[in-house]
């Protein structure tokens, strides 16, 4: 298991670094914000990408 800090609330989040995928989106168990796993070794979390809106197809 590995831990990383939530960039929003600084909560320590514990994950199995061998089973999560880079790019996977998870929820912070403390503040609920969506996080993206940007690295597994070392485990690194960032806020998940923003959702935008566009005209067109």
């Amino acid at each position, binding site marked *: 298991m590995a831990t990383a800090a939530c960039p929003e609330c600084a909560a320590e989040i514990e994950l199995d670094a061998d089973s999560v995928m880079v790019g996977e989106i998870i929820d912070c168990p403390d503040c609920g914000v969506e996080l993206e796993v940007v690295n597994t070794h070392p485990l690194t979390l960032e806020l998940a*990408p923003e959702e935008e809106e566009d005209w067109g*197809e």
Partner: protein
Amino acid sequence: MTRLISNDAEAVAFLTELISIPSFSGQERGAVERFIGEMEMYGAAAEVDGAGNGVAAFGEGPHQLLLLGHIDTVPGIIPVRREGSLLYGRGAVDAKGPLAAMAMAAAQLGARPGWQIVVVGAVEEEAASSRGARYLLERYQPRYCIIGEPSTWSRITLGYKGRLLIDYTLEQPIGHTAGRESGGCEQAAAFWQNLLEYCRAYNHGLDVRFAMLDPSLRRMNSSDDGLTERVEMRIGMRLPPHAPLHELLAQLDIWRGEAELRTHGEEQAYIADKRTPLCAAFLAAIRTAGGQPAFVFKTGTSDMNVVGPLWNCPIAAYGPGDSALDHTPREHIDLREYLRSIEVIKAVLSRLTSAASPA
């Protein structure tokens, strides 16, 4: 002859040729044959299917990954030309650019053990029929699907609004303009106004367009032969998820009076799951290429609306280009972005079809 190595020049030449062949909806054959020819040169098993789609398959295996682009365009000839890194032409963005990017990525990657990567240049996406995509529905059940539509190279499209087209036709005997009966044009205008007010009420308090009911008056004309007047309107509705379609149709029936209504081109809004190996692969590939990824929801429709609900597999739309240029006389693509998107798609395909990919 099988071509084993591609490069940026070949990818640009292919896109330029594809854009140079007009392929308005229903007239795609020439572009489809060019697509087929190119894919065969890269070793794909390629054919024109029963709907007229260009289909190219790389490799064989129990798992299928479908790259679904469309090869038709809206009308309007835009002379193909280069201005620096910008390539102008109808379809450069919507959606020959994204189709060519997927095709080149699959071609450059080649066959993957245990997988069949299928690239489809579908016909009639720009027509309300979506004939090409519908033909695929019962013939494929892919494990992953990427829809080729412009999102810009660093964004992933997760959702499209739905659509409903409404044709309004009113015929009635002509009355004197000084009389008490309202004329056909006035009745049609009142119908439109009722619809606008209904949508305004539905949209009240909403701050994202994706969640709104969006009506547009696409055509309106009137005529008479001295005895009977005729008024016609075509109204397009962009539908949000969970649109109150049943209630809306009941209202339309009340407002129409003596007019006839025909509804068609209905598509439900669709939102893809972002917590999938497909989206994870895109996020990682975009970051690796130096981008800051984002998710996007579109106010238009695409073939995702058609295949997403039935295939129910991880799905996303991706492709180079600014969708604000869709259907405009300024349509163009930045070739640097096009080439970068090929690298992103290649990385995504490689990861999804690797032995380490979740089964």
